[in-house]
Each structure stands twice: as structure tokens, then as C-alpha cells.
């Protein structure tokens, strides 16, 4: 199933940098260093974003503001030391004008000092801890923040009769972000919350879910990095938590579109709040999904892909706005306040925080035909990152 596709992608990933690199020498070139985890446990993130970036360039062309965008793809394997070194090499040796990608919070954080020192925009396309944009004035985010996605969940849960929640999150920045933002909001509304954190590399959810099962909460709020969501779901059902009436809620990572279909019926009924679903009902999204699936047969774009797609668009738009001036300060200035209709809905780059303002949707996982989808049934419009908004 995935074999041929993966092989092909492997070649293409290698070829991308080379071919673009050769073809673009003549015209004046603006280089974008795209650093993604292409191998290792978070490789799916990298592959989604890479596919989306290529899709954008194929659709809109590489020339913007009179300059030709050239993407140099590098694999950091999800290791922060490597990310940082690659970023530094891209800046020093390849003279890139923009750094982009960053699949995980530590990877984005490790690179922040480079962006600051080199005065180069750092476009975060995936990592979702709230504090990232504060690490450097040159960071702009086109993905989402976990508090942004988690706090609406607290509101929804409380107003739908849920009183006691148990949270299970992965023990690193984004997980802690999701847990604290949800718990604070939910407690403020009057609910009670119990929490447990799962180590990042954890082979077995059983002991953690057993605690949940004994606590018998109304709902289980979960955040795990996309990829291990399927395993979590299966054990949730295996432990009989669904039959015991425990609702599964959380930000949308656990029902990632990329792997949702493989989870099987265990995922049905999960309620999540997130900024993107492949079934988002808009013309822009239908066109995006269609083009993405045509270019990558058998792969459904997920929230990572849309982050990469919009990130690349942001770079192009900024370059247009500066008329091809690729200096860092100019580009950042142009990015602030940028706004357009994305496949996920209307988005704006908050001029004050350089973080993204977007709609958050409440979705239920359902079967449409033979496939599983997250169907949006409520919208919270234009949500800012609540952590920074409170400051």
C-alpha cells in the first residue's frame, strides 16, 4: 500500500533540492530552508508539510514579487541539535532568506536564537506550544497553538453537561500546554479535573488508562502527538472506557486525518476541537484536498499539511508585498497582519504576536461512506492564542 509511494517520495525529496537548485540559478533567487523531520517517529509530519509546500509552488508558481522561490529541504530526524545545526548551515552557507518547517516544539525553540541573530524569518508550520512565537521576534506561525485549540474544548464540555474530566497528555511542551489551558478554563467554569502525563516514548498506555477507568470521569481529555493516536484509541476501547460512558475529547491531534482511517470504528464519536478537518466545508478546501490527493495518491491532507501550505503562501505573499525585498525585517513587517481565505477558513497573522488567528471548529468523528472523517458542527470564530491574548 505505502511501499511504492514511499519509495517515490524518497527520491523526490532528494531530488527536490537538487533540481530546484539547478534550474533557478539564472533568475534572482530567494532561498527558503525547509527543515522537517523526514525520518524517525515524526516523519509523517515532515512528509505532509513537504507535500503541501510542493503543492503550493506547483499551483502558484515559484516566482513572487519578481523573485524565484527556491526550497532547500533538510531532514533533522526530529532531533533538536540537528535542527539547530542545519538552520545555522542554511543561513551561513546557503544564504537562505527564510527558515521554515519545524515539526516539534523543541526543534522550533532550538532554532529561535539563529533566527534572531541572523534576522531571518522563521516560519513555524507545525509546532504548537504557545510560547514559541515569544522565543524570537522573527518567528511567525501558520499552524496553531494548543491553548487555542484546547480552551474552546473546555467551554464546549462544560456547556454539554460534562462535570468531571480526566486529562491524559504526552509529557512535553505541547501536552503540558494542552493540559494546563484546558484544566484552567474548565476549573474556572466549575468543573473538576484530574491529570496524568504519559512519557514521550511510551510503549504501553494500559496503566494510564487503567487509572482513568477507575476514576470514572465524564470525559477523557487527551493529547498525544499525531501518529500514536491510533494506539491510544484502540486501548481506550479495549479497556471498555467507551462502553463505560467516558466521552473522548481533546484537541484534534488524536484523530489526525492522516491516520484516522486506519484506526477503524474505535474512533467514532470522539469530540475534538481543532482548526482544520479535511472535510471542512468550503470551496477553497475542496480544491485543496482534491489537488493534494491528486499529487499524493492515497494520502489525505491533515492539519500539518494545511500549516505547510499556508506557511508557503505567507512567504510568497510577503515577498509580493515587499516587491521582492527579502531582508528579514521587511518580510516580517509584511507578514504581520497578512490575511486570506485558507482551506481551513479565514486566517490572519496577529500583528502583535505574529501568531495565527483562525476559526476553531468543534467536530465529531463519523463515518462518511466507508471512510472516517471529523465532521465540524460548531465554529468559534477568529480565536487568538489565549495565552498571549491574556498578557
Amino acid at each position: 500500500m505505502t511501499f511504492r509511494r514511499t519509495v517515490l517520495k524518497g527520491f523526490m525529496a532528494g531530488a527536490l533540492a537538487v533540481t530546484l537548485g539547478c534550474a533557478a540559478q539564472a533568475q534572482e533567487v530567494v532561498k527558503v530552508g525547509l527543515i522537517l523531520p523526514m525520518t524517525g517517529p515524526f516523519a509523517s509530519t515532515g512528509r505532509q508539510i513537504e507535500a503541501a509546500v510542493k503543492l503550493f509552488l506547483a499551483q502558484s508558481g515559484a516566482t513572487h514579487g519578481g523573485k524565484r522561490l527556491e526550497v532547500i529541504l533538510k531532514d533533522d530526524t526530529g532531533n533538536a541539535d540537528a535542527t539547530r545545526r542545519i538552520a545555522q548551515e542554511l543561513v551561513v552557507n546557503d544564504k537562505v532568506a527564510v527558515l521554515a518547517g519545524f515539526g516539534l516544539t523543541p526543534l522550533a525553540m532550538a532554532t529561535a536564537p539563529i533566527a534572531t541573530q541572523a534576522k531571518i524569518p522563521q516560519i513555524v508550520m507545525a509546532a504548537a506550544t504557545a510560547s514559541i512565537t515569544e522565543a524570537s521576534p522573527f518567528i511567525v506561525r501558520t499552524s496553531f497553538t494548543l491553548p487555542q485549540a484546547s480552551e474552546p474544548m473546555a467551554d464546549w464540555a462544560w456547556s454539554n453537561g460534562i462535570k468531571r474530566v480526566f486529562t491524559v497528555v504526552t509529557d512535553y511542551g505541547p501536552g503540558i500546554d494542552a493540559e494546563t489551558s484546558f484544566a484552567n478554563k474548565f476549573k474556572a467554569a466549575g468543573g473538576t479535573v484530574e491529570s496524568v502525563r504519559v512519557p514521550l516514548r511510551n510503549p504501553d498506555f494500559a496503566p494510564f488508562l487503567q487509572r482513568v477507568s477507575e476514576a470514572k470521569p465524564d470525559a477523557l481529555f487527551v493529547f498525544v502527538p499525531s501518529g500514536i493516536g491510533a494506539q491510544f484509541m484502540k486501548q481506550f476501547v479495549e479497556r471498555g472506557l467507551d462502553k463505560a460512558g467516558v466521552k473522548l475529547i481533546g484537541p484534534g491531534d488524536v484523530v489526525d486525518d492522516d491516520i484516522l482511517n486506519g484506526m477503524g470504528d474505535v474512533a467514532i464519536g470522539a469530540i475534538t476541537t481543532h482548526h482544520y478537518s479535511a472535510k471542512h466545508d468550503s470551496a477553497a478546501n475542496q480544491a485543496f484536498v482534491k489537488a493534494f490527493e491528486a499529487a499524493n495518491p492515497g494520502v489525505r491532507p491533515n492539519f500539518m499539511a494545511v500549516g505547510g501550505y499556508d506557511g508557503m503562501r505567507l512567504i510568497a505573499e510577503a515577498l509580493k508585498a515587499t516587491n521582492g525585498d527579502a531582508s528579514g525585517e521587511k518580510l516580517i513587517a509584511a507578514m504581520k497582519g497578512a490575511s486570506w481565505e485558507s482551506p481551513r477558513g479565514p486566517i490572519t497573522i496577529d500583528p502583535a504576536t505574529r501568531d495565527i488567528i483562525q476559526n476553531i471548529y468543534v467536530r465529531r468523528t463519523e463515518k462518511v461512506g466507508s471512510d472516517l472523517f471529523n465532521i465540524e458542527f460548531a465554529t468559534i470564530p477568529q480565536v487568538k492564542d489565549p495565552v498571549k491574548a491574556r498578557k
Partner: protein
Amino acid sequence: MSGTVLEQHVRQSLRRARRWHPAELAFWLLAAASFALFPTRFLILNEIAILALFALSLDLILGYAGIVSLGHAAFLGMGAYSAGLLAKYVTADPLAGLAFGMATSALLGLLTSPLVLRGTDLTRLMITLGVALILYEVANSLAWLTGGADGLQGITMAPIFGTFDFDIFGRTAYLYSLLVLFILFLIARRIVNSPFGLSLRGIRDNQLRAAASGVPVPWRLAAIYALSAAYAGAAGALLAQTTQFVSLDVFDFHRSADLMLVLIIGGAGYLYGGLIGAIAFKFLQDAIATFTPQYWMFWIGLFLVLFVLGGRELIHGAIKALVARFPERGASS
């Protein structure tokens, strides 16, 4: 007394063993020249220098005292976090951080040496591995201090001696790492040629005879283990300072495994093995990762397998041929 002629011979012979070979001078001249020759590759050169120091540290125990370890990353990590935390909370002076990282690692080495200095090679491999894994978990669970899985953020280093600022091109960083490597190498070279170093080689060759010659074996091993830990700590401190970031990865198993590979490539027991191995390893990794960014691990693995199956003799033959005639006790395999 048998007259001074023999004493003269003895003296000369002992001096000859520690005298600088022209190939050694050439090696360090090249290292210095790399600074001018590859002005765009400071980052990887810096990584090489740090890895070389780390490998030198392993060589001190493996090559000179015969202690195997699959958990040397424990000391790298200890040094890195110590230096990083010192810079973040106390003083940003690089040399203070270096000293602090070395001290904490040496202390850790001293404390864990009783665990490591017993049992067979296999038990040692397991215990060193276990110690590194435990430290990984400790660093992970002390998230309030270490940043946990997010890594230790927000380290900024002061300029070295208050004048040489760490620049984005890595020029200062490389020069700094290279100098530290060189100085620590000189010290190590002096030490392995001292009576202390001689007694270690004795322990490596034959523990029974060493003890029967009056060498307090456990104490010597503890001493060299702590010293080696300090060297690894220095490598860790350099890593933390020049990248201004520390992640849990410094404790990871692959660090120890890579290190073993580095030393095996270069050959243990003559100090240069780690340095040559580090250069070969990094360039190999860089070259492979450039033409196949996703699957370099496969090629490293293949290289390892072939290497152990018979490639080692080839490579070491080449190194020996290059150095013409190294002192006899040199590349003892």
C-alpha cells in the same frame, strides 16, 4: 650500579616513546589549517572537534584501561546540562561553564565507578547503559530544571575572556572547541606517558600481574574513570555552549553507540584513534546524509557490519601506512 651508560640508554628509550612523531605535528598543523581552509564549514568542524574530545575520553578508559562502556553519554549529558544550567542561572562565562561541567562529570564518574568496575565485560556494558538511561529519565522528569523533553532553552554565552563573541558562523565556537581539544589532548598525552598511564596499561594487559606489582587496581581504575568522565563532561560543556541549547538527546543511547563506532573506526589505545575516527565518522555521515537525507542510518549500519566483519584491518592498515612507522606500542588492537 651498572654504570651510567645503561641508564642513558634507558632514559633515551623512555624519551623516545613520548617524543612527538612528525605525523603528529602534521596532524595538528592540519587541524589548525582547517580554520583557514574551510571557512564555510565551521559548524561541522566544531561538531567534529567536540566528538573527537568525546572519543578521546572513551579512549582513555577503553584503550588505556580496558573498560568497555555503552553509556558514556551519561557524562556528555552531565557536562552539557551542568554547563547549560550554570550559564542560564549563574554565570555566562564559558570557561567557568567548562570547568563546572568537567567537575560535575568527574564527580559522577567517581560515584558510579564502583558500579562499573566489577563484573565481566557484558555486565559492564549493561550497567553503563543502565546508568545513562537512568540519567536520561532523571533529566526528563526534572523538567522544572532541565526543560524536560523540550530541551534546555535560553542559554546565552558571554564572550570568551570577555572579548571573543560566539558568532553565527561558528568561527569563535570552532576555535574555542579546537583549543580546548588541543589542550586536553596535550594533558592526556602527558598522562598516558606518566607512571600513572603506564600502570593503566599494565592493568589493561594483565590485572593479576598489575596487582602483584603493587598497583592498587580498583583505585587506579576509579581515577581514570573519573578523569575520562571529566573529558566527556568537557565535550558536553562545549556542545552546550557552542550550540547554546541542550536536549535530552545528549543522554541518548545512539550517542554512546556512535561514540563506540568512532573509536572502533579510528582504533583505540593511541589517543589519535578517537580524533581520526571522529573526522571519518562525521564526514561519512555528512556525505551520506547529503545524497540520501532519509536513510543515512542504513548506510552507517552497513558500514558497521562490514567494518567488524573485516574492513577494520583494511582501514587500520591504511592509517598505519599513512603514519609510516608509529611507535611500536601504537595501534595495539
